[in-house]
């Protein structure tokens, strides 16, 4: 029975029975897409399984990657207040070579428990880690957020394509969050909470949509092979 179970898991792209330590909550958008796909199957509209209309992109496989940055960056753990830098890392190695990347969206969910006492707009900067020193970071995004805003989506398709084609380049991302106007200030504003609280106030996940040619051979997005 174990051998048969292993075969079935392999068919699903898994090496063993998953035992998630922390089961992250399923976003409502994923549950909605799942229900739409069930309806499509029930009505025989199998072509709809190769298009994600909720995101407006072709794709038959959707993954929501967990941020593993906190686990792999001891420097961050030791960081003293104001601890505004957070390291993000997504292990996307499970994406197979034959999958075409169609969408990669970073979701940053801010629960402002650590900063809400400030009631200030926030300055958010996202950088790509390219080497061991902070000087090698490539700035991707600088955005101001109203203090009450909770969710931010960032298109990372080009970045994830590069990580996928060259896995060694996936050194992660750095997120920096400061009260607006304090970046160049000589006065350090200390947030009222400690680092753990700060880290818990930001949750990052990466939604990736891919298209597998074998599963979606009828989809016209692919260039035709030469006969």
């Amino acid at each position, binding site marked *: 029975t174990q051998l048969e179970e292993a075969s079935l898991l392999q*068919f*699903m*792209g*898994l*090496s*063993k*029975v*998953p*035992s*998630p*330590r*922390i*089961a*992250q909550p*399923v*976003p409502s958008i*994923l*549950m909605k*897409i*799942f229900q739409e*796909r*069930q309806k499509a*199957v029930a009505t*025989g509209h*199998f072509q709809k*399984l190769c298009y994600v209309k909720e995101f407006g992109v072709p794709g*038959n*496989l*959707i*993954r*929501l*990657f*967990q941020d*593993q940055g906190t686990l792999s960056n001891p420097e961050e753990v030791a960081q003293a207040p104001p601890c505004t830098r957070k390291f993000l890392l997504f*292990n996307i190695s*499970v994406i197979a070579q034959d999958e075409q990347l169609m969408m990669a969206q970073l979701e940053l969910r801010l629960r402002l428990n650590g900063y809400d006492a400030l009631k200030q707009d926030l300055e958010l900067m996202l950088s790509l880690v390219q080497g061991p020193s902070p000087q090698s970071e490539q700035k991707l995004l600088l955005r101001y957020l109203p203090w009450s805003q909770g969710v931010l989506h960032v298109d990372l398709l080009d970045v994830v394509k590069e990580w996928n084609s060259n896995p060694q380049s996936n050194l992660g991302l750095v997120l920096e969050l400061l009260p607006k106007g304090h970046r160049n200030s000589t006065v350090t504003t200390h947030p009222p909470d400690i680092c753990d609280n700060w880290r818990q106030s930001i949750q990052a996940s990466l939604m990736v949509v891919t298209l597998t040619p074998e*599963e979606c051979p009828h989809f016209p997005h692919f260039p035709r092979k030469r006969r």
Partner: protein
Amino acid sequence: ATFPTLESTTNHLCQRHHMVINFEKLGWHKWIIAPKEFRTNYCKGDCPFSLMAFFNSSNYAFFQTLMNSKTPEIPKAACIPTKLSPISMLYYDNDGNIILQHHEGMVVDECGCG
């Protein structure tokens, strides 16, 4: 739905039978988020030569059944799925990531002799 309803006297003939796979009973409910179970069918029954046309049989199945009547060592054509459809599954992988994928060939829609 493709085949006419078979009378109880023909229950031994090739046809689909309902089957429900419950992930909790498999012990997979901790990582498969949805569906909790899926309804499919299995194929079971005889494929007599006289009814081969009725069972949506392949040309090969005709010949195999014909050969069986002459040479019993050659088995009869088997009752097998002739049309399958996919299901979508939402589950956690080994890293705790959430996957939404459709898997082909999970539900037996029709059976036939092949």
